[in-house]
């Protein structure tokens, strides 16, 4: 059997044109997916059974019911539970996560807080002048990649949305477009660009500010060399920006997680805003996990905020105070539920240490570093492969992911629903 128009649940590009060949409920071939996506869809080692860590410190296989029971007990007895992750699961599961957070009075935070969280803070300052990826495909004759390397992180981005394909107004595709990469090092994306601007590490804010000065006609303010870049190069780049018909600015964690953080984003957004007085310009964050965008959407429409502390019974948001790492660095968390993510591999060591010493429940199809510190492990079906669900592409487009094969594993949503039933009081909204 061939399933066409399948959507890949690997990265934020959500390519929806895959053809998947299934034989006897097994995926035997994937067409058009990149290597990252194909590797996920074709399958690799996963957690086989629910597990609970025994007194000897060893994860012991158990039933789903007893793992759910144990998880519920842990969460019910916690005073400051943290529900974290959510980037690689469906909006339906994320929605259950927010509800569980309400019932428990928990903090619900996503992987964005260590990734594109600063982007959200920048957007709170300046808004987000953006466009759907198809708009960029059809119109953009200048593409800027700043602090990102889509050839590795989003392998089909350039061929589907941002470069190679012809668009309505650009019938020769790549030949009609100019690529500019700005980065601290030569990357594969830089290598195929028409221009590469190598800047000193941590100088993004300064370079962006210099470009703003030039775009706004304040050339005198810009010195001959700005953080390793000559004024001549900056004048040429600002000229390209002003004279293009439609410019698109993509950025990654090179901008969000380097010195300046959300101020870098604020500056890039302001530059985009300024450029619109002279031409058309849009800006789009290259979001990593396939549905990290979805968590920001779901949590915002349900609570008003992209991450939320529900310990007061009402939504509260103050990044720097209530994000996962703020709580963990202060050693406030006394139990955690980690869904579809791997904080043990990505958080600062103090956070991981504090996470590890308290009870930790993991819900994930795959084992990762967090499994090593988990006390309860509940494996689930893979969204977009073994179960349906909604995900948001990096440009905020909602798509329904298909189920390709049957699975004995329950979905994240089903597991969360069972936990919700166990921890809620009779008659409460749930």
């Amino acid at each position, binding site marked *: 059997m061939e399933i*066409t*128009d399948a*959507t890949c649940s690997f990265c934020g590009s959500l390519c*929806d*044109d895959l053809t998947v060949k299934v034989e006897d409920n097994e995926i035997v071939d994937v067409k058009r997916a990149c290597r990252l996506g194909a590797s996920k869809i074709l399958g690799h080692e996963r957690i086989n059974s629910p597990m609970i860590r025994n007194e000897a410190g060893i994860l012991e296989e158990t039933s789903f019911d007893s793992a759910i029971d144990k998880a519920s007990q842990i969460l019910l007895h916690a005073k400051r539970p943290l529900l974290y992750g959510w980037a690689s699961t469906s*909006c339906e599961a994320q*929605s259950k996560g927010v*509800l569980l957070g*309400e019932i428990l009075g928990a903090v619900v935070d996503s992987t964005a807080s260590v990734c594109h969280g600063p982007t*959200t803070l920048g*957007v*709170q*300052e*300046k*808004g*987000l*002048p*953006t*466009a*759907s990826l*198809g*708009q960029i*495909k*059809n*119109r953009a004759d200048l593409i800027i990649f700043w602090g990102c390397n889509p050839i590795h992180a989003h392998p089909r981005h350039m061929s*589907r949305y941002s470069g190679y394909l*012809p*668009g*309505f*107004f650009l019938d020769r595709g790549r030949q009609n477009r100019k690529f500019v990469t700005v980065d601290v090092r030569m990357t594969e994306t830089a290598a195929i660009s028409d221009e590469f601007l190598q800047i000193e590490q941590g100088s993004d804010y300064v370079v962006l500010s210099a470009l703003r000065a030039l775009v706004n006609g304040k050339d005198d303010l810009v010195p001959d060399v700005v953080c390793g870049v000559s004024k001549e190069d900056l004048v040429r780049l600002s000229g390209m920006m002003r004279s293009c018909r*439609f410019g698109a600015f993509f950025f990654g964690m090179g901008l969000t997680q380097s010195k300046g953080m959300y101020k870098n984003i604020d500056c890039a957004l302001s530059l985009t*805003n300024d450029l*619109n007085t002279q*031409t*058309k310009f*849009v800006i789009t964050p290259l979001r990593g996990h396939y549905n990290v965008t979805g968590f*920001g*959407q779901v949590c*915002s*429409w*349900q*609570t*008003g*905020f*992209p991450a939320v502390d529900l310990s007061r*019974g*009402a*939504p*509260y*948001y103050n990044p720097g105070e209530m994000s996962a790492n703020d709580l963990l660095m202060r050693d406030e968390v006394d139990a955690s539920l980690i869904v579809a993510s791997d904080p043990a591999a990505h958080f600062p060591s103090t956070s991981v240490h504090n996470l590890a010493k308290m009870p930790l429940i993991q819900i994930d199809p795959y084992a990762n570093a967090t499994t090593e510190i988990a006390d309860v492990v509940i494996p689930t079906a893979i969204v977009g492969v073994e179960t*349906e669900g*909604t995900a*948001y592409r990096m440009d*905020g*487009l*909602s*798509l*329904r992911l298909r189920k390709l094969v049957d699975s004995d594993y329950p979905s994240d949503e089903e597991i969360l629903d069972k936990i919700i039933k166990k921890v809620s009081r009779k*008659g409460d*909204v749930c």
Partner: protein
Amino acid sequence: MSELLIKNGRVFDPINSINGDIMDIAIKNGKIVDDISLSPDTKVIDASSMIVMPGGVDAHSHIAGSKVNSGRIMCPNDSRSGIEKRTKITRPCSGYTVPNTFAMGYRYAKLGYTTVFEAAIPILHARHTHEEFGDIPIIDKGGLVLFGSNWQVMEAVRENDIEKLAAYIAWGLSASRGYGVKIVNPGGGEAWGFGKNVSGLHDTVPNFDVTPAEIITGLAKANEMLHLPHSIHLHCNLLGKPGNYKTTIETMKLLENIKPSMDRQVVHITHMTFNAWGGTNWGDFESKADAVADYLNQHDHVTVDMGQLIFGNATTMTADGPMQYANARLLATKWTNGDVELEDASGVVPLSYIRKMYIHDIMWAVGLEVALLTKNPWQVLLTTDHPNGGPFVNYPEVIALLMSARKREEEMLKLSNKMRDRTTLSGIERELDWYDIAIKTRASHAKILGLTDHGKGHLGAYADADVTIYHINPDQVDAGREHATVKKAFEKPAYTIKDGEFVVRNGEITATPEGRTFWVNASVPEEDNTRLMKDLRLKFRKYYSINLANYMVQDNYVKHPVVIKAGGS
């Protein structure tokens, strides 16, 4: 099942011409019935000395979808301003201008509203709108779908192929599970794709060789060809620009000769607060609401809504991308933009309406002038274009202003003198009565949407048992004098009943049923559809960024659909 009798209320049900009669309203199994035989299980409410109206209907509000959520994401300050804790039956709430989805449902219900229509859905993003609809409790919903800068629309208009255009509208409504045709700054959204705008009704849309006037008339013809329950719903060109009243009137004139396919208007022109402006710049800015009302008084093919301005915070959100960029530059404030490939544009800009800033004062007057100078109450709906003119929770304030010349005078004392000089408001003595208010807050909304036959906006037999009971006695309250009492009564209905169930008592939510979603399924001749699909397949292969097979809103996203059939005669 459940039976309910509302006894001795003063009933205002304009669709059935009931004007304050003392009547009983009987409800059985979620519907209004002519009569019920009392049984021990029948619940009885004594509504004597209270006003009984059909549940409120809002034909134009921005309650769900990508731009509403963009407003939330860029304005955490707003979310923080409306915090309410979780209770045993309600989810936690946040926000004032952009409430979270739960608050959206609860607050509408608390105001006595039971049906609300989202006013701008890009087809591409319709799935998102329906996801948020699913999280808005209690109220019934529906949505108007953007067609005004759509490539397929402009191409069909250029080819003068109205049959194919109709086929596309039918397909687009089905793809988006949408209800009606919304047009926003026609052609302007496409021009904004390269940072431009159209300058008027007869300016050519770049690269598409059609004019806004042609787009509007083409869509109106196709709309009537399809016998859609609602007319085209139009946000005019040049909205937000001084002097735009001329374009607004010219737009209405364009459509004088189009015959409606059913008993309703040919066009609904929305949020008049932003469309009836005179002057040539911000310096000589003035109201031309009188000119617009004059036109409305002589023509019945147009209905409008107020889009009343409310002083304080607002979050403007619209598919009018170029207008929003101009707004953001003018106010030096933050700006979100969201171009939608092949379909439209959009922008979100938070702002504050400030008393004594004469432009805002004049805008405040414009909405009221249009409502008060237009003689036929059915022609002007009460809205705030939530949250563009201000949040919907302020409807009771607008009701009080319409019912009391004294309140308007009191308000005007707080405003600039330029407002008095450049509007006609201070000379208007008209005070609307309870019947007028029932028209402007439910009956006319249901009528212009074509929902009266589907059980909305009235209390006739077989209507949905959506009823609001207000704690106010029209015999004892002089609304002109006691406007504060009026406002209070409309802010806190004694009861809101949805499908025969109490959802609000004395301002508190008592039940949170899931609402339904109305959408229109229009049939078209197969040959038109075949021609259309040839075009669409090409567009998806070459220009859209997703596949055709993944485009339509799947049934999973519309849990309680009400499908209204339409199509050629």
